[in-house]
């Protein structure tokens, strides 16, 4: 594979490079070493990355930077190039960012696979992209110094120009060819924070224009000569198999090319291949497919909740124990809160429906997909097609959202696309999951039940806490299981409780993970979607009982090392001081704070009840993400993240199953927030920090629902322990 000594970083042929680097891909399962969720603080392993794979200085001065992960709204396609361009002293107006294809060199430095998840993009690639920029700068200076016969130390750089000691100057584009022949420096000095001119400053997105004028191509927009469109009829109950279908009726539709039964990751389905989407859709609607559903479990939401509630009355596998579990028994019932919470399945429903395009022929395959897991998806396609991973060229397409839905360990969408393409050698096939396929197709945030027993001390603070969590494991049966399941507890189900920042003396957390016939998946902020709701509503209830200000109460209960949350709450108190205590009448303020993925967030919302629903008049966020690489993007992530999080409190914010079948079909039945539901303003304040940066995609999501519900409790005096929120 390519190494740090690859000399020609400016002129390397990308295809050649990818051939070189792809060879290592097959060994990746062996070296998989994912970061624990919530602890994205590791230092990337020392590795000199070949600038050849990341930077291409064109002779016209344009600097093309490869981004080693998917852009799907989180802003990484701007932030990582900012870090690189800053160290390189590149002219930002000349930077073009591209999404890198699948290749070993583009693996996440900590995860060991090419992926986006766990809010790790900036946390994991911060040093990497800075070093790449600094290396490129050093090579350009060395080329100029050699040309002018001066020492490199005598040169300086600014906006893609090297300046020499005797008024010499040369543009990067002019130096590119000679710089490419020089060795990559073994070590480089990174800038001090005071020397950074892009990082830390509000910087608008590089992908904005194309997304505003319709020219940005997403995966679903891939259009190739001779391309066909495929839809698949999936079983109505997960894992069921086709009994019969009417291929004649489907084939009678003009433009339909093929109709056939095919294996799925779960059960079997019927593929319809047509020239155009509409023909494929009409044909699928006419299949009259019958299914053998008798042999598979028929999950049912009501029955599952009943089963989960029973399980929650018994201790599960121990996730965390501190102090004495028995201490609860000596606390009188008047000093206890027993709370039971219920959370439904949730679908991600990113705006761009799931899709993948595959072209297969005897020499290999090409894939176009918006993927959070390029490594797994590339390997899955290779496996289906009987190819080696390096025979599969995998293009990373811009994705219209994802929120976890494009990070699927079983690569079921890519496997379907490859299975269909295998039958049609030489013909590119675009598999589209319609919105109905997506809403009904599983891979949901699991249902959860929490049962919590809290014992309150004389000072109103919790002194004993017994907590049982019931819900499916996200990672059982996946390559992540070995790392994330310990002693029968899936870390992603208990994160946010087991590692709470609150100093509770006697603390006992256990978990049950029932196996249910519903595919489940991480949903933006993963376990924190439910754990933060439970913790933050209970803490607020305790604060109310103690007649203590909710921010003061939290600050008192936080452990001394919860520095980020402390900073966030202190900043939130300062920024809301002018109005937080003056909300009266039909308005109340709710507060929540939570740390996830290494980033602290505190939130205050002003809420009233209108038409039996919470109306959010304003939200204020204080966030501590360490060093803020792009404050403008952080602001957007906070604003968007709280709106995404509100999906949980929407009246139709639930996926439910009845006798094995999903009851919602589309956004009419499963309805996320629209503009009328979202806060009118979301004010964002960033804690000033020079600490290592942590992620911002997921951390805003957990705080909003508990903050809203805490405000409602202050208005109505009731507690709200089940989501979605019933009428107030």
């Amino acid at each position, binding site marked *: 594979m390519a190494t740090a000594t690859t000399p020609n970083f400016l002129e390397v042929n990308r295809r050649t490079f990818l051939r070189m680097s792809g060879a290592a891909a097959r060994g990746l399962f062996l070296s998989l070493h994912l970061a624990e969720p919530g602890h994205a603080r590791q230092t990337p392993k020392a590795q000199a990355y070949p600038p050849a794979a990341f930077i291409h200085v064109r002779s016209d001065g344009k600097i093309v930077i490869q981004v080693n992960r998917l852009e799907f709204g989180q802003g990484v396609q701007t932030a990582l190039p900012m870090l690189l361009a800053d160290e390189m002293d590149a002219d930002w107006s000349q930077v073009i960012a591209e999404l890198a294809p699948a290749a070993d060199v583009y693996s996440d430095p900590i995860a060991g696979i090419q992926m986006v998840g766990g809010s790790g993009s900036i946390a994991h690639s911060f040093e990497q992209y800075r070093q790449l920029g600094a290396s490129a700068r050093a090579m350009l200076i060395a080329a100029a110094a050699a040309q002018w016969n001066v020492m490199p130390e005598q040169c300086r750089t600014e906006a893609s120009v090297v300046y020499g000691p005797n008024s010499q100057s040369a543009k990067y584009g002019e130096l590119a060819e000679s710089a490419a022949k020089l060795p990559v420096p073994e070590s480089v000095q990174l800038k001090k924070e005071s020397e950074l001119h892009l990082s830390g400053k509000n910087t608008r997105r590089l992908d904005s224009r194309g997304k*505003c*004028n319709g020219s*940005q191509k997403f995966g679903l*927009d891939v259009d190739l000569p001779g391309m066909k469109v495929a839809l698949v009829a999936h079983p109505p109950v997960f894992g069921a198999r086709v009994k019969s279908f009417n291929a004649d009726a489907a084939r009678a539709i*003009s433009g339909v090319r093929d109709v056939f039964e095919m294996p799925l990751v779960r059960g079997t389905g019927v593929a319809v291949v047509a020239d155009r989407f509409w023909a494929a859709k009409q044909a699928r609607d006419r299949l009259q497919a019958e299914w053998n559903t008798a042999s598979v479990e028929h999950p049912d939401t009501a029955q599952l909740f009943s089963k989960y509630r029973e399980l929650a009355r018994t201790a599960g596998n121990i996730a965390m124990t501190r102090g004495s579990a028995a201490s609860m028994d000596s606390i009188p019932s008047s000093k206890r809160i027993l709370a039971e919470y219920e959370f439904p399945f949730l679908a991600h429903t990113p705006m761009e429906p799931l899709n993948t395009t595959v072209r297969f022929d005897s020499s290999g395959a090409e894939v176009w997909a918006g993927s959070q897991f390029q490594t797994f998806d590339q390997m899955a396609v290779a496996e289906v097609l009987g190819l080696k991973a390096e025979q599969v060229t995998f293009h990373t397409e811009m994705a219209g959202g994802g929120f976890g839905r494009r990070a699927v360990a079983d690569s079921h969408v890519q496997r379907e696309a490859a299975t269909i393409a295998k039958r049609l050698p030489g013909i590119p096939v675009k598999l589209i999951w319609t919105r109905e396929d997506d809403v009904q197709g599983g891979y949901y945030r699991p249902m959860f039940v929490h049962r919590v027993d809290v014992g309150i001390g004389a000072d109103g603070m919790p002194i004993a806490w017994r907590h049982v969590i019931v819900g499916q494991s996200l990672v059982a049966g996946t390559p992540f299981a070995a790392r994330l399941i310990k002693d029968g507890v899936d870390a992603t189900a208990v994160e946010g409780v087991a590692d709470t920042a609150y100093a509770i003396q006697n603390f006992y957390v256990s978990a049950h993970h029932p196996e249910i016939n519903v595919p489940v998946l991480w949903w933006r902020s993963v376990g924190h979607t439910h754990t933060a709701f439970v913790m933050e509503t209970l803490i607020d209830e305790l604060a109310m009982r103690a007649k203590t200000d909710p921010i003061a109460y939290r600050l008192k209960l936080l452990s001394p090392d919860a520095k980020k949350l402390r900073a966030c709450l202190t900043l939130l108190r300062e920024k809301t001081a002018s109005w937080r205590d003056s909300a009266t009448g039909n308005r109340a303020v709710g507060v929540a704070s939570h740390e996830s993925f290494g980033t602290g967030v505190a939130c205050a919302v002003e809420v009233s009840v209108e038409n039996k629903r919470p109306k959010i008049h304003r939200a204020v966020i204080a966030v501590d993400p360490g060093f803020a690489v792009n404050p403008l993007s952080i602001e957007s992530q906070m604003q968007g993240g709280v709106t995404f999080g509100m999906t949980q409190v929407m009246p139709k914010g639930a996926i439910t199953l009845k006798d094995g079948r999903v009851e919602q079909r589309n956004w009419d039945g499963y309805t996320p927030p629209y503009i009328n539901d979202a806060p009118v303003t979301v004010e964002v304040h960033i804690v000033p920090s020079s600490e290592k940066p942590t992620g911002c995609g997921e951390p805003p999501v957990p705080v909003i629902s508990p903050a809203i519900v805490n405000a409602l409790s202050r208005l109505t005096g009731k507690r709200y322990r089940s989501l979605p929120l019933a009428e107030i």
Partner: protein
Amino acid sequence: METFKLTVNCQQKDVTVDPSTPLLWVLREDLKMSGTKYGCGIAACGACTVHVGGVPTRSCVLPISLVGERPVVTIEAMSNDTIGRVVEEAWVSEDVVQCGYCQSGQIMSAVALLKATPKPTDKDIEESMGGNLCRCGTYVRIRQAIKAAARQLG
């Protein structure tokens, strides 16, 4: 299959398709104009919004046979539209987009709003933009951008 004469962004286009084909798929697949997006297929999300006869319309549920002689205007024409250009600039300037997939539809709804209501209130914005879903939750910035565009146009 039937042939339809369309006017799309001031250009005449002939397409031969099944009459039930939604305008969305004619734009995307036959006319290769992929700026208009498929999100739901049931007029629930607004990602497919175009102007038909000047009215913001969900192209995913409008059969091509019902378009008739009404001119169709899509996101691709907004850079050449007086109000469209200002809205696009406001969107860029306010750094509205995240994943960006819904934004063609958002912008088409916003342009229609500003053409009818040059000084929209928050309530006007909620009424006109209320059917455009954004899963990234860019609503706060959409609101700001519409107000900024209105100021610019005023």
